[in-house]
């Protein structure tokens, strides 16, 4: 029962955060509300017994990625005057909602086909660091390895695009 309440609290918070992201004019406000969403999601992960992910969500997402974004926002020193006018935003929002209705209803229809099942917290041995780590390094070696390439690419890319460059003769 308590878990259910928690679910509702977190979900309302996350949706509010998301709505804030979409609606706030200034990206800083958007980023802040996204952080709210992320933290709520972390709570939901905990409710779903994904302990490692819960931690990582907080550390990597809400922590690292979002602080990077915030850092850049501040680095670029974005003023309100720099922001786009976005006069027709409301029309776009309304139109977007109309367009999204079929997609959402389709997805919800799909979800409804799932037999109802409880999401009680599962005890030990599920979602812990060790257990997930074992799965990761045994079954999911390939993705894990190639993610390293991906990160390498992104690293070089960031340098190439934003860093200093030694231009060829």
């Amino acid at each position: 029962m308590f878990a259910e309440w928690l679910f509702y609290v977190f979900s309302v918070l996350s949706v509010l955060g998301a709505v804030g992201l979409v609606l706030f004019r200034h990206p800083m406000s958007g980023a802040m509300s996204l952080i709210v969403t992320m933290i709520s999601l972390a709570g939901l992960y905990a409710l779903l017994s994904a302990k490692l992910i819960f931690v990582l969500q907080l550390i990597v997402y809400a922590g690292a990625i979002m602080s990077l974004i915030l850092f850049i926002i501040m680095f670029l020193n974005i003023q309100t005057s720099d922001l786009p006018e976005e006069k027709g935003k409301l029309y776009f929002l309304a139109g977007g909602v109309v367009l999204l209705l079929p997609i959402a209803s389709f997805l919800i229809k799909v979800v409804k086909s799932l037999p109802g099942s409880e999401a009680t917290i599962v005890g030990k041995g599920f979602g812990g660091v060790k257990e997930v780590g074992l799965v990761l390094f045994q079954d999911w070696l390939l993705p894990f390895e190639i993610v390293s390439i991906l990160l390498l690419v992104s690293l070089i890319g960031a340098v190439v695009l934003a860093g200093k460059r030694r231009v060829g003769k």
Partner: protein
Amino acid sequence: MIQHYLILSIILFCLGILGVISRRNVFTVFMSIELMLNAANLAFITFSRLHLSMDGQVLALLVMAVAAAEAALALAVVILLHKHKGNLDTNVFSLLKG
């Protein structure tokens, strides 16, 4: 109950889409995409709980890594854009058209 998690995931996903198509600020757009990835992650975790297999959690983990990589690149691009125009309006960047 599982369904509720999934519906939440769908709502967040759709809100992400909405952000992408209705906003012109580059930051907001990228954050909306992050939101979509998060929604997907929520779905992964939910299914992981549903199937009681930890594969879903691993998948979420990998998606997080991808999201991080993408974010890094996206921010580099943002800096590049800002250097060119001093402005982060996506509509400003419409030289290529027709």
